């Protein structure tokens, strides 16, 4: 009953898949955070002028990620771009993350009291100085927990890239399951890896959050 045909090589294959998952998460969060910060600041600064932007980003939040992958993948072929599946995965996940990150950043910026910003301006700071030295540090602390949740949810959503043919953790385990026919064991290991990755990210985030709160 306790014999298994899972080999060390299979485990290595799964860990490689986990590495792809992490790379995808990092790349998507990089794109998503950069775009999200810019869009979020714009959304907070000009709420009415940027309404179309918010509608556009809302589309990415209301359409299943799986369909976004398929659509973008086929669009890529139609237009004739020669991108790898990995790049497509990064871009789609990045835009998806940006759509959520925009709202997080906007919420953070709006949480900075207007009186605080007025005070900084009346101390003679320019608009950019106010943004850089007053709004950014305060908003970062407010928005960070939401951002961390986004990292975790993007990491879980990377599982969907298997549909466009990237071998990440879940796809790797499926490949192994197909060969050795022990779904329960292999999937449990995959689940454990996902769980550990989430746990590590959440712990690191919590530590950072605590450290930021020390100098308040």
């Amino acid at each position, binding site marked *: 009953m306790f014999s298994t045909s899972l080999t060390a090589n299979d485990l290595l294959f799964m860990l490689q898949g986990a590495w792809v998952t992490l790379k995808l998460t990092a790349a998507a969060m990089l794109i998503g955070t950069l775009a999200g910060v810019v869009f979020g600041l714009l959304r907070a600064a000009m709420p009415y002028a940027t309404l179309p932007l918010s509608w556009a980003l809302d*589309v990415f939040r*209301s*359409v*299943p*990620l*799986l*369909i*976004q992958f*398929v*659509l973008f*993948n*086929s*669009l890529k072929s*139609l*237009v*004739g771009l020669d991108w790898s599946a990995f790049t497509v995965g990064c871009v789609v996940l990045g835009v998806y993350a940006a759509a959520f990150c925009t709202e997080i950043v906007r919420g953070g910026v709006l949480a900075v009291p207007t009186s605080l910003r007025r005070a900084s301006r009346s101390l003679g700071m320019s608009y950019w100085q106010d943004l850089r030295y007053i709004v950014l540090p305060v908003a970062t602390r407010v928005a960070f927990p939401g951002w961390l949740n986004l990292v*975790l949810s993007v990491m*879980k*959503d*990377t*599982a*969907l890239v*298997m*549909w466009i043919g990237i071998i990440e953790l*879940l796809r790797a385990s*499926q490949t192994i*399951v197909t060969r050795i026919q*022990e*779904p*329960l064991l292999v*999937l*449990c290991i*995959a*689940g454990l890896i*996902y*769980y550990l990755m*989430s*746990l590590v990210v959440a712990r690191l985030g919590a530590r950072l959050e605590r450290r930021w709160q020390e100098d308040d």
Partner: protein
Amino acid sequence: MFDYTFQWRPALRALPDMLAGAWVTFETAALSMILGVLLALALTVMRRMDNPLPRAFANLWVSIARNTPSLFQIYMLYFGLGSFGWHISSWAALLAGITFNNAGYLAENFRGGLKAVPDTQMRAARSLGMGAFQAYRLIVFPQLLRIVYHPLTNQMVWAVLMTSLGVIVGLNDDLTGVTQDYNVRTFRTFEFFAIAAVLYYLITKVIVLVARLLAWRLFRY
């Protein structure tokens, strides 16, 4: 560079089938939400028990549901249960997977909601002579509902989006499944999936709109 002609006609001809698929999608999501809310309530109660066994079970459920991909959860039910000789259909696996996921997320919402209802409310109700159940039903629950209403609608939207994962375990009668069926027959991938995307967008918007109307009707003082 761009020499592709879109063929919308076959895609539009498939629209009735896709609408039927959209209905299946909605039904699955709604069913998983109803079951998910019931399970989440049970989990919330279990997490507040003094007995450590149900508490540990509920905590395990919530942390697994929240820390692993929903696709993994569906896989686990579809392929994993097969190891025990239970072969369930892909629809059942999808429904059970989403329900598992919903229950985990909602239990966390309910816990937060309960924390937000002040203890004094409960004590005041009890001191007015209400029984524990009465106090929960008449005092705590209405306040809780207001707090968790928005997360509930959000979760409903998530449930609709998650049903699209059914196609990966071979479901072929929900919206994504129907679309994929047409896709493999015609290879008009972009057209079919664009229409599916529009339909998903509409479904989520309708849900949000209905929820907003309902909230307006429900939460008037």
